[in-house]
């Protein structure tokens, strides 16, 4: 029998489906307790075509995905989890046409809960557009 696949590799190799597919989310890089995910800009991300204002919705969704990936990067376990809460600070507007990048760290895990922090940028990691924290609950039997 083949050796069990690493949980993060499994995540990276999942066929895109659902909202991840709509946003085109992909993995950029990862480490022992972090993951960086990105998605290309799409015209559907705009709030206003004339001003080029980008909606924060795709940013929130990317943060949710990156935080979940960071937990898998840290735990190397494939467990069902639900987002308990998420807080996002908007630091500056995202620029239309730029890919979004979210790098999340999972800084603590308990038996039932994982805690994450995340920074989002649109091309320059030194000029973040948002920062976020999120906690997740590991679900029984999932």
């Amino acid at each position: 029998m083949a050796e069990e696949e690493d949980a993060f590799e499994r995540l990276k190799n999942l066929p895109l489906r659902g909202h991840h597919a709509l946003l085109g989310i992909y993995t950029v890089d990862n480490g022992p307790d972090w993951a960086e995910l990105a998605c290309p800009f799409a015209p559907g991300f705009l709030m206003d075509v004339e001003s080029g204002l980008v909606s924060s919705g795709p940013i929130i969704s990317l943060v949710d995905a990156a935080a979940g990936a960071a937990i898998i990067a840290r735990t190397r376990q494939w467990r069902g989890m639900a987002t308990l809460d998420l807080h996002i600070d908007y630091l500056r507007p995202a620029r239309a046409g730029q890919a979004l990048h979210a790098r999340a760290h999972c800084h603590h895990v308990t038996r039932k809960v994982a805690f994450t922090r995340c920074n989002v940028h649109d091309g320059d990691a030194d000029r973040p557009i948002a920062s976020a924290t999120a906690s997740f609950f590991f679900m029984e039997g999932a």
Partner: protein
Amino acid sequence: MIVHAPYARMLGIRTVAGEAGAATLMMPAAPSLEGRAGFLYGGVIASLLELACLEAVAQESGHPRPKPINMSFDFLRGGMMIDSYAQARLVRVGRQVVNIDAICWQTDREKPVAIGRMHLLLD
């Protein structure tokens, strides 16, 4: 109108008649909004809450374009792959800051799927 924004259209969000005074947004379920199998993606539910806040502030504060400062979400139960509703309420409209809260529900408003709180800057 928030529902005319390309992003709101991408999620299929529209306005429905709600209680007097507050606009209610409705988002039909679609495969492109799914997270783990059988459930709406958390980020999509959060986005619906945020759009409800922006809609409420646009309608009620008369301010053309308030700037989002931050937003917090609590996810209370899994969102089923059915219609979702969201409504926001201006808690306080200050000279410079607006505090809003919002609720998202599906079949029963008394059993919310998620709640959110948002700060916006008027300047």
